[in-house]
């Protein structure tokens, strides 16, 4: 009995000693795992879990294990704020990767700025990094870049007059505004500008209006969720007969499944992940992207989505910064993040600078088209 007691005491002491010796590096996250933006948060959460596990199996970072502390903010900016506060004040994390939507991200920005916490957002809108905020970084391409990439492709096809249709969500509205803003630069004229509501189930009225706008050569749909799938179906039903462009917000197999045959010929800008199989071996992203796809699909038995890729980039960029800083000191990690160059990620090749806290340009934002129910890159 006494021996047993001694032994367990010793074991407890040993465990405590070990814990002090290697206090884990804490990665904080708040993601929309449930709710309307669950299709963003769910793959992001899974990706973070999988790769924290993998990094730990490979010996951790700086000789320390990683610990993921993740909360479900359910697409709610108010909840995001509460959880971010908890991550900073109670959990005392070393870095925050999260914010599936722009609304959640922007609600948290003042907190991380005040606390001096390195924060990598996984949301799209350009307002997150423009103007530059000292402690805030982000991984996905912005909505403005989506507009630019699409307009570039339109110019290549000699398209000048387009109809725009967008949803009522934050992303939809932000992208619409960005597209209206950069259109003149690409000499694109927007001759019709229609909108639909969040739960709208029929967009034929809006599309009929666009169809009848004089001289329309293409239609661009800014939005994500069910809207774009219905727009695509209605678009084919009305036989509008001009090219249809979607945003990177629908960049998952789900979209093709929902829109069915109507999705044929739809073009959209997206990161390399969607076309991993068809990338040439010479492509710099080939290895990173196909490894991630293989590992994710083997583990979760479901298709990868671009959104999980944002989380991979967020996690790996923070790990890279810690390695570079050789510490988890927040200021040093922030400086290291800002100086990351030529980092090959899922969304593209990152080149952070003090003026650019996203570090991506249009080079690795690819134009893809739906052909025979699959994504195919356009050269």
């Amino acid at each position: 009995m006494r021996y047993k007691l001694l032994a367990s005491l010793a074991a407890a002491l040993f465990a405590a000693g070990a814990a002090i010796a290697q206090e884990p590096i804490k990665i904080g996250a708040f993601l929309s795992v449930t709710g309307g933006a669950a299709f963003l948060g769910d793959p992001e959460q899974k990706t973070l879990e999988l790769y924290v596990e993998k990094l730990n199996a490979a010996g951790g970072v700086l000789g320390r294990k990683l610990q993921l502390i993740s909360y479900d903010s359910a697409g709610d900016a108010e909840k995001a704020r509460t959880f971010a506060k908890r991550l900073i004040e109670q959990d005392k994390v070393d870095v925050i990767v999260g914010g599936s939507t722009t609304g959640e991200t922007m609600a948290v920005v003042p907190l991380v700025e005040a606390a001096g916490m390195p924060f990598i957002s996984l949301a799209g809108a350009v307002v997150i990094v423009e103007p530059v905020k000292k402690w805030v970084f982000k991984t996905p391409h912005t909505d403005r870049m989506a507009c630019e990439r699409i307009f570039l492709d339109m110019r290549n096809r000699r398209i000048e007059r387009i109809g725009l249709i967008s949803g009522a969500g934050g992303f939809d509205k932000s992208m619409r505004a960005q597209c209206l803003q950069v259109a003149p630069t690409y000499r694109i004229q927007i001759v019709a500008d229609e909108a639909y509501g969040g739960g709208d189930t029929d967009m034929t009225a809006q599309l009929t209006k666009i169809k009848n706008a004089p001289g329309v050569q293409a239609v661009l749909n800014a939005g994500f969720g069910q809207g774009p799938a219905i727009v695509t179906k209605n678009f084919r039903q009305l036989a509008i007969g001009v090219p249809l462009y979607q945003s990177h917000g629908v960049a998952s197999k789900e979209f093709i499944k929902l829109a069915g045959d109507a999705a044929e010929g739809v073009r959209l800008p997206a990161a390399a992940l969607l076309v991993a199989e068809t990338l040439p071996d010479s492509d710099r992203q080939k290895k990173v992207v196909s490894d991630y796809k293989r590992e994710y699909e083997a583990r979760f038995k479901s298709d990868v989505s671009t959104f999980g890729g944002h989380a991979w980039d967020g996690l790996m960029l923070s790990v890279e910064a810690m390695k570079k800083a050789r510490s988890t000191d927040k200021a040093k990690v922030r400086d290291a993040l800002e100086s990351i160059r030529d980092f090959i990620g899922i969304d593209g090749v990152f080149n952070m600078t003090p003026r650019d806290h996203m570090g991506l340009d249009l080079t690795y934002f690819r134009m893809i088209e739906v052909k025979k129910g699959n994504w195919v890159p356009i050269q």
Partner: protein
Amino acid sequence: MSAQLAQYLLSGLTVGAIYALVALGFAIIYNASHVINFAQGEFVMIGGMATVALANAGLPLLLAVPVAVLAAAAVGLALEKFAVEPARGASVVTLIIITIGASILLRGLATLVWDKNLHALKPFSGDKPIELAGATILPQSLWVLGVTLAIVLLLGWFFSRTLIGKAMLATSHNPLAAQLCGVNVRFVLLLSFGLSAALGAIAGILIAPITLTSWDVGVMLGLKGFAAAILGGLGSGAGAVLGGLLLGIAESLGAGYLSSAYKDAIAFVIILAVLFFLPSGLLGKKSAERV
């Protein structure tokens, strides 16, 4: 220009037919109990989601559809049996709040039983658009319109020719008198929930190939169906159908000729207008306090 108008009308009719089915569900339960069942939209969701799940499991559509309708009807019966009936004698407002609670519960259960993703159902007979007066209509829309028409005729026959239908009608006019004449009012109430759940489910299945379905599809369709029921006059079958079709066409015309951003608002502006100027709806019974 006329082709444009034809397109708006066709789109409006298709959506309107679905609103009509949902509104009929509201009317049947309202007649039996004076309760507005806010879980009506959830029956629409259950119909669509169950059919998708069964079809994905390999069941042919011909089998999946009746099974899904029966499943929704069973949920409707259970809702009456375990939530509404135990509160018998409570005020109508209490019962309405119970149905709101039930709708939240059913949405939550749907995310657990199925998932939170959007799903598409294969159209019943292809998706090649049919041209009609310069406008186009999907074969599925013809299904929606045809089945709605058939159901309206069937319900008309049920309420005017069958004993149980007449018993339901009698209960709606005066429950006490009906009970005195030997009508089992409790059974009528139970049946009304089953019937409107089945109607909602049929609406959900018909529309799923056109609009996709998901765990929260019932919220908006339920509200629009409610608006249609109010417009037509709560409790009136013909009113529900008329209200649904008018609402669908008004939305479509509004989006086409006014502003598409306010498409959803049109339905709710109509509710407000009707409540202000025509409280009993287009075809509703004029309610007057009898002394």
